[in-house]
């Protein structure tokens, strides 16, 4: 009987993986060849024929090597997968939200868009930071698109529902975390809270953006219909 492990090593070459991992793969493939060989012998084939049958299991060792290498680069791919399904869509969603916020601020606060006296009426001092509603409301209107972009990109990359939700709501998560962080800092560095203003700010920063983003995310929480499969009407 041939030395199957040596044969696999010789024909396939190095996988370029960690020695233990490579050894495990070679052992596994060699044991498969051994099983095929023994089955062939048990069926009454002579040794030469049994060896031929075993070797026929692999037509192109180089192609097998490449396929295994592709499949075994686990860490890199796992990281890529998380990056593709969560971090990248989330960052795109966040960037879009921030860009829209900047644009809303720049455009909405231009005097030509505001009737005389309008700004004073709308620019209500709702919070301690004087967040202008005139910029905030258009931004809220644009947030569903940011949420949709994050969730869509995550779904396209094969993200599961939680990843799609997190990617779509990423701007809200980031914003809310920032507010919580600043609040904690506020607890450490003593300053006078105007509690009404603070609660209003917290609500404005947390609830409406989350709802707006969710509007965009919800359509992409459904599984996409596989393109290759026809729909069933039965």
């Amino acid at each position, binding site marked *: 009987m041939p030395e199957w492990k040596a044969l696999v090593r010789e024909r396939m070459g190095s996988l370029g993986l960690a020695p233990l991992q490579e050894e495990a793969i070679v052992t596994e493939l060699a044991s498969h060849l051994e099983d095929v060989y023994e089955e062939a012998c048990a069926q009454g084939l002579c040794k030469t024929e049994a060896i031929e049958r075993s070797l026929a299991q692999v037509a192109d060792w180089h192609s097998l090597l490449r396929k295994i290498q592709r*499949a075994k680069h686990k860490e890199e791919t796992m990281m890529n997968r998380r990056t593709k399904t969560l971090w990248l869509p989330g960052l795109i969603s966040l960037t879009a939200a921030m860009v829209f916020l900047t644009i809303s601020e720049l455009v909405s606060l231009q005097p030509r868009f505001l009737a005389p006296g309008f700004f004073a009426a709308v620019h209500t001092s709702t919070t301690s930071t004087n967040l202008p509603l005139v910029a905030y409301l258009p931004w809220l209107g644009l947030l569903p698109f940011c949420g949709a972009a994050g969730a869509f990109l995550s779904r396209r990359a094969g993200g599961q529902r939680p990843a799609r939700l997190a990617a779509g709501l990423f701007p809200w998560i980031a914003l809310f975390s920032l507010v919580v962080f600043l609040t904690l800092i506020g607890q450490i560095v003593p300053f006078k809270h105007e509690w009404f203003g603070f609660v209003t700010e917290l609500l404005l920063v947390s609830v409406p953006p989350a709802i707006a983003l969710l509007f965009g995310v919800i359509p992409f929480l459904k599984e996409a219909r596989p393109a290759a499969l026809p729909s069933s009407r039965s």
Partner: protein
Amino acid sequence: MTKRVRSKIARGSAEVAILMLLAEQPLYGFEIAKRIEERTKGALSFTLASLYPMLYELEKRGWVHGRWEANQAGRDRRYYGLTPAGKKGLVPLRREWKVFFRALDRLAGVVHA
């Protein structure tokens, strides 16, 4: 013996075939290939070159998990079993394939009518 399914169709269904088999019990590579060949009466068959890259892909995806164990003959073999993620992933796959084959069935019905 049933005619062998053409390779392109077989490739698409191979993953589902492996997962469905592993949903029943953990098996090692050679056993997987044998069982699939037996159950499909030779319509689907795997060689070492087609089976292991697919098993490793499924393992990377976290759908199957391999561990070394002694087989009945006392030899160490790498047994593959479905992970919870694999069980969860198999449900829509089964459904999609059912829809696909039902559609083909209907199409064949029209053709033969």
